């Protein structure tokens, strides 16, 4: 390919956009819309995943220890349990700490007499609070713990917590499915639009071939056009989302009365964009170019 032709291709590619405004508009709009939806799904999913991690951090298994254990034994046992790969960390809660927490429990009325009684003759057990790396390993860990003699009782997360986790898994799975669907949808819709725009210009392609153009001479302007349209159609939604993200986050925060102390928090947009931008570019640009090339093929056979 000569340099001469290259400048011709660029010129042709851009001119074609300006001379076929309605086609270019349709293609850009379609790409924009697809990437926009993908972006929203992506931002939503990333935030949910982020919060799932936050919340899962709060979930742990409590293993109550035999009353007769001495501190050394406890340390030793802790070391042993920690070797399990499913476990992230273990917090030891002594009898005293347990009582402090118990008193702090708002369900108990502030009856100083009773509390004193309780403190003196502490009936509560010391325990390990065990954090899992992955919530799915719960059953495995419980099984493991129940084999240890010194552990007399195991408490697992409450149903509400479990529900929360299930729900979040559900949302995560749904989001993943939605993103896959959106990508497929994007491929179909962008492909469709390219098909129609190429259809409109099939005569043009034929004429070029009849007067001696090589296949690549025909293709290059389409590639450049696809590149530009794909680029615009990716850039518009990415920039829009970038600048409206905080706005929408604030709306949500207000709507849900989420404040600083709340467990729900939002990821910074820049962090999400590290994975969204390449994904969007592949879909937008890739489709634009590969799509045109595939669809032009059948018209080149003349």
């Amino acid at each position: 390919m000569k340099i001469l032709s290259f400048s011709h291709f660029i010129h042709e590619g851009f001119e074609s956009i300006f001379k076929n405004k309605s086609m270019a508009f349709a293609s850009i709009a379609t790409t924009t819309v697809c990437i926009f939806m993908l972006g929203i799904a992506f931002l939503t999913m990333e935030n949910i995943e982020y919060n799932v991690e936050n919340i899962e951090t709060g979930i742990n298994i409590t293993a109550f220890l035999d009353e007769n254990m001495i501190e050394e034994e406890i340390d030793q046992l802790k070391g042993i349990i920690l070797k399990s790969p499913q476990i992230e960390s273990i917090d030891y809660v002594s009898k005293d700490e347990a009582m402090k927490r118990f008193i702090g429990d708002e369900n108990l009325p502030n009856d100083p007499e009773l509390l004193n009684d309780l403190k003196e003759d502490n009936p509560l057990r010391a325990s390990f609070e065990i954090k899992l790396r992955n919530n799915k390993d719960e059953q495995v860990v419980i099984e493991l713990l129940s084999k240890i003699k010194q552990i007399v009782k195991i408490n697992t997360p409450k149903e509400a917590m479990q529900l929360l986790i299930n729900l979040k898994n559900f949302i995560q799975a749904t989001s993943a499915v939605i993103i896959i669907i959106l990508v497929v949808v994007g491929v179909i819709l962008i492909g469709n639009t390219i098909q129609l725009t190429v259809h409109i210009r099939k005569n043009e392609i034929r004429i070029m071939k009849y007067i001696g153009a090589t296949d690549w001479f025909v293709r290059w302007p389409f590639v450049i056009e696809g590149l530009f349209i794909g680029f615009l159609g990716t850039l518009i939604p990415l920039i829009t989302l970038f600048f409206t993200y905080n706005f929408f986050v604030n709306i949500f925060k207000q709507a849900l009365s989420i404040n600083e102390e709340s467990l729900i928090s939002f990821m910074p947009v820049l962090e999400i964009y590290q994975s969204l931008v390449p994904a969007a570019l592949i879909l937008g640009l890739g489709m634009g170019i590969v799509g045109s090339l595939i669809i032009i093929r059948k018209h080149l056979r003349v």
Partner: protein
Amino acid sequence: MIILDNVTKIYENSAVGVKNINLKIKEGEFVFIVGNTGSGKSTILRLLLKEIEPSNGTIIIGDKDITKMSKESIPYFRRELGVVFQDFKLFENKTVFENVAFAMKVIEESPRNIRRTVPNVLSTMGLENKARCYPKQLSGGEKQRTAIGRAILNNPSILLADEPTGNLDPKTSWDIMKVLEEINKNGTTVIVVTHNQEIVNSMQKRVIQLKDAKIIRDVVKGGYEE
């Protein structure tokens, strides 16, 4: 040298384009193809351009059997041809200048060359004032002259012209025929399909007459006969 050896073209809907055509055209010849409407004249040109494939027979152009040509060499083969299509086949989205210039862009000529050559051809065709018009802003004859301009631009070794004067007044038709004769004198083989009795009669060139998909007459210096 163009050789059609027992060439038959049956279209998909089983319409007969041409049937058992045998034809030899030497380099540098000037040939009229005449005949009734629907007798197969355009079909012959389309076969020579490889726009369609023959159902049967061999077509040799230069020293190549174009029915056995590889896909990759088709564009290079076509660049040796200049074609005026009966329906013009102009780019709707390009101006007259761009339409003509495109033939040079295809062969990757420099923009300088293009800027020098195209205006000459446009003025030969009397289209100086229409250079920046789009096809839909042209009269029938102007479209036709644009198509002719594009076909002759690269001094092709073979020029195929399908009814190049169908939309032109007698005077302009004569001007165009003069141009084709000029090109022919410079060595280009010229094949013109036409219904223009007067022109065929006065130019006294080789005339090939078709009827019902067959050649019924082939005379070296002939006129238009019914």
